């Protein structure tokens, strides 16, 4: 698992990248009440705003971690946004993407580096 400074986790799985937010981010955000997901098939460029998460406190975005295409979204989250708080690193993944350029993965943090990043 890799981590971005935006508190996203990235998991390589069968040539795809699964994207979610970390438990730390979910905790900071507070109760999530709304998730807006992209369309499957959307071409995305690194740092595009691809997901909107609204909590009781504020709105935040998920930025595309890589260039590529959205191949699957977790539509469960539209009906059950609270899953983001309940299981951020498991069932509450946001989307799977087919990356066209994996090179930024090397720059993302590993587990130990992310722990240090959040001061854990």
């Amino acid at each position: 698992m890799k981590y971005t400074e935006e508190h996203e986790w990235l998991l390589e799985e069968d040539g795809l990248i699964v994207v979610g937010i970390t438990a730390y981010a979910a905790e900071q955000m507070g109760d999530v009440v709304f998730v807006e997901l992209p369309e499957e098939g959307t071409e995305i460029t690194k740092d595009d705003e691809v997901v909107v998460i609204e909590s009781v406190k504020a709105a935040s975005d998920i930025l595309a971690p890589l260039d590529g295409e959205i191949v699957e979204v977790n539509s469960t989250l539209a009906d059950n946004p609270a899953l983001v708080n309940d299981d951020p690193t498991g069932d509450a993944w946001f989307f799977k993407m087919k990356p066209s350029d994996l090179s930024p993965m090397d720059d993302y943090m590993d587990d130990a580096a992310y722990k240090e990043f959040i001061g854990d």
Partner: protein
Amino acid sequence: MTDLLRTPLHALHLELGGKMVGFAGYDMPVQFRAGIMAEHTHTREKAGLFDVSHMGQVVISGGDWDALATAFETLVPMDVLGLKEGRQRYGLFTDKNGGITDDLMFANRGDHLFVVVNAACKDQDIAHMKSALEPALDVAPVTDRALLALQGPAAETVLSELAPEAAGMKFMDVATLMLDGAECWVSRSGYTGEDGYEISVPSEHAESLARRLLDHDDVLPIGLGARDSLRLEAGLCLYGHDIDTTTLPAEASLTWAIQKARRQGGAREGGFPGAEAVLSQMQDGPARKRVGLRPEGRAPMREGVELFAEDAGGEPVGKITSGGFGPTVGGPVAMGYVPADKAEPGTVLYGELRGKRLPVTVSAMPFVAANFKR
């Protein structure tokens, strides 16, 4: 950045796991361990304890009730003279243009008038009252008392265990009660739409009283986050957002707070700052009005979202001034200003969210039925 002030309950907030934020110059808990959603729901179902000690408490004294009330009526468009001893009323300070400079609660406590104003406005409010009322009267900020709010359907049962008289109070009654050995100034009121009490307690007793209330199984500590979602569902204004110096009472849908005696043709018509503008807007009808709004779907529409008459094109016709997710409603709720001809409940407008226009229906407030003990 200047240092944040602390209320007498600050250490208790930290002990209870409060997430602290700066609010109106004070270091205040935005939530506790339960989180905003659970705190909100708990207050609607049982009871929540809020620290509102950052608000301004002021005692005005130095005359009999007629003298106090007559003087105070020069500052607010409310019927103060007609307020009976042991009763409280909602009020507004206005400026010379009729704009609202703060909203407040004031109570007839026999030999004095007790006023509670917003934290962010308190310095300005106190200066305003002093310059208008002194030296004939004495305007004394109360700096040695904390202010707690116990809100929710279980509030009566909980407070009655400390003072049985609490049960006999009705909505907007005020009384002096001995709670946990301390002389407290209690009102049956609040800012959640629920039954409950606001309790002015000597600072040195505040933590002990708070702990006693929190000892009750039905009571949880509640932060500012849930305070905001509760008041929003109750349709209550947040000063600086839903009302300010650019809004007059009529357009703010607060004419209910201006009693007949102070209106056009009333026994004591006008006589407060900006009276002409305030009363003529009430008479002629405002061009815009504060209304409740229900965005369709689940996406919250927050303060600043612009409202349009059509789903494409055109200029904005209004703006959201408060909005968020209403945990009890189970969906987004908001309030804002719209043209008077679009203020009828059921009118569909469009809020622009991230470049998309989404339907928003004008809706009666409160969004959640009030639960007061009348």
